């Protein structure tokens, strides 16, 4: 089935004279992993922030299952089913790993005990169960990244936006995260949008790839098509 779960329609974003997103339109197909590439400043994170409402777009529509979510507060978009992890890891430093995830479980749990029980299961999926009582600030980067993913998945989202989670990780850690992201997609049926500079990683997991340049869609297609696209090679690899 190729039903769109998220439709981005003519989205524009401007910051003090900078046209950060220009009439961006595309559809996210339910069940796919959509990779997003583009040079620094192409508008990739801006697009994510527009979708989850942390910085809503100035114009355009974003339809999640045919409902326009532009202007909706971020916590409500999260409750509806769109979760996001951030470019620089955002966790609750002074809280334990368990409580970091339990915060997101509060949407569906009535008590702290129930939230913690649910969080413990989620930690297991990410291989963090041994660190449940460790403060987030004492975890190494790779595990902090996993922790943020665990917190995002605790929202039980239908769409998960992952912003450069592999930056700063070694190859073993990257492969571990790739493996888990694919399991999130296949076993848990979550549609993914993944911003990544690591092309090897992105080619491996993406069903399709969206290339952005100067805030506009350059092309959208299968990984092998996009990687042969002349403008992508020029824009992304910096060939003159």
């Amino acid at each position, binding site marked *: 089935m190729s039903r769109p779960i998220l439709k981005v329609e003519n989205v524009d974003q401007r910051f003090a004279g900078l046209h950060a997103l220009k009439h961006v339109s595309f559809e996210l197909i339910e069940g796919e992993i959509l990779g997003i590439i583009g040079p620094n400043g192409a508008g990739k994170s801006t697009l994510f922030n527009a979708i*989850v409402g*942390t910085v809503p777009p100035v114009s355009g529509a974003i339809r999640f299952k045919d409902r326009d979510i532009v202007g909706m*507060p*971020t*916590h*409500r978009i*999260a*409750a509806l089913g769109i*979760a*996001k*992890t*951030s470019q620089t890891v*955002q*966790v*609750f*430093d*002074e*809280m*334990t790993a368990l*409580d970091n995830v*339990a*915060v*997101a479980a*509060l*949407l569906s*749990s*009535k*008590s*702290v005990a129930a*939230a913690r029980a649910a969080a413990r299961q989620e930690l297991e999926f990410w291989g963090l169960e041994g660190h449940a*009582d*460790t*403060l987030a*600030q*004492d975890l190494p980067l790779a595990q902090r990244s996993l922790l*943020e993913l665990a*917190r*995002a998945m*605790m*929202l039980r989202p239908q769409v998960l936006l992952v912003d450069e989670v592999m930056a700063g990780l070694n190859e073993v850690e990257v492969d571990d995260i790739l493996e888990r992201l694919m399991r999130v997609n296949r076993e848990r049926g979550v549609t993914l949008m993944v911003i990544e500079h690591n092309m090897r990683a992105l080619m491996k997991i993406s069903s399709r790839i969206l290339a952005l340049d100067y805030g506009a869609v350059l092309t959208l297609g299968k990984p092998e098509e996009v990687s042969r696209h002349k403008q992508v090679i020029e824009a992304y690899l910096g060939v003159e």
Partner: protein
Amino acid sequence: MATHTTSRAVKPRTSAAIGWLVFLVAVFTAPLYLDNQYDLRLAILVCLLGGASIGWNLLGGYANQISLGHITFFGIGMYTVAIFQSSLHLSPWLAIPVAVILSLAVAALIGWPSFRLSGHYFALATLALLPVSELVASGWESLTGGARGLSVPILPSGLATLQFDRPEPFFYVAAAFLVIVLAIARLVRFSTLGMRLSAIRSNPEAATLAGVDQFRAKMTALLISAAIVAIAGSLYGAFLQYVDPRTAFSWDTTLNLVLFAIVGGLQFWWGPLLGAAILVPVNEYASMQLSGNLAALGQLAYGVILLLLIIFQPRGLGGLLQTVFQRLEGGSRK
């Protein structure tokens, strides 16, 4: 300093229960060992100001939403009791719910617009509260007695009038208030609301991404907090039997509420009480013992000690105590 376990996990349930029991006995037998009126008066101040600071901390400490206007709720409590007792000849107990409702209205008025914006708008908005309240209290002479203030007439001694011929009974009232406030603070700390507030304190952006409705969590904390401070102020008004704009809406008391919490430890539900138990007597003795130029010196020393504490023990004395206890427990296990 990083600790690898939550305070909840460190102390088993029984030792916490014993701790509570010892605390309750110590509080309610205080009139036995504080055998002079002066010390008992200090103890009442610790209960009321400590209780108010615990109220402030629900929002200021738990969620790092610093209010610099909480004494407004305190002042509203003082004035309501004074007006009820002097002009309306009504029981102070009736004044308390009225003071709470008035404070909730003011709190909602401040919180509604400023919590919709992120950043420091809330702290700035609360900064305006004190001068405005003082203006209203001085200007509305027919109700508040203006700058002269209001005195409560001497009434028959008893719980109904909250006037007693000895300080002991009032101490028990203040202590009961403190214990209830402590119980509320603990309940909130370990509730789903407490968890949301901790998330907001730790990382507001991440909290929103994790589905936390910040506006709702902060608003709830603010309302509970304002109600507690209003009750503290009502009792204080009944205790002083007098109110004027400067005592009701004093900048000093506002700062003290914040300082008690910082010194005791912002993230501990009992932190502000620890701060009040130390700073209320220190303040009193300093202002009694030091006069003239020495008084200024005392203030200076007070300021320096606070600065040192904030630099070297940012988790407050509560944090220091926690570290010491954890070392002791770790040592005894080995």
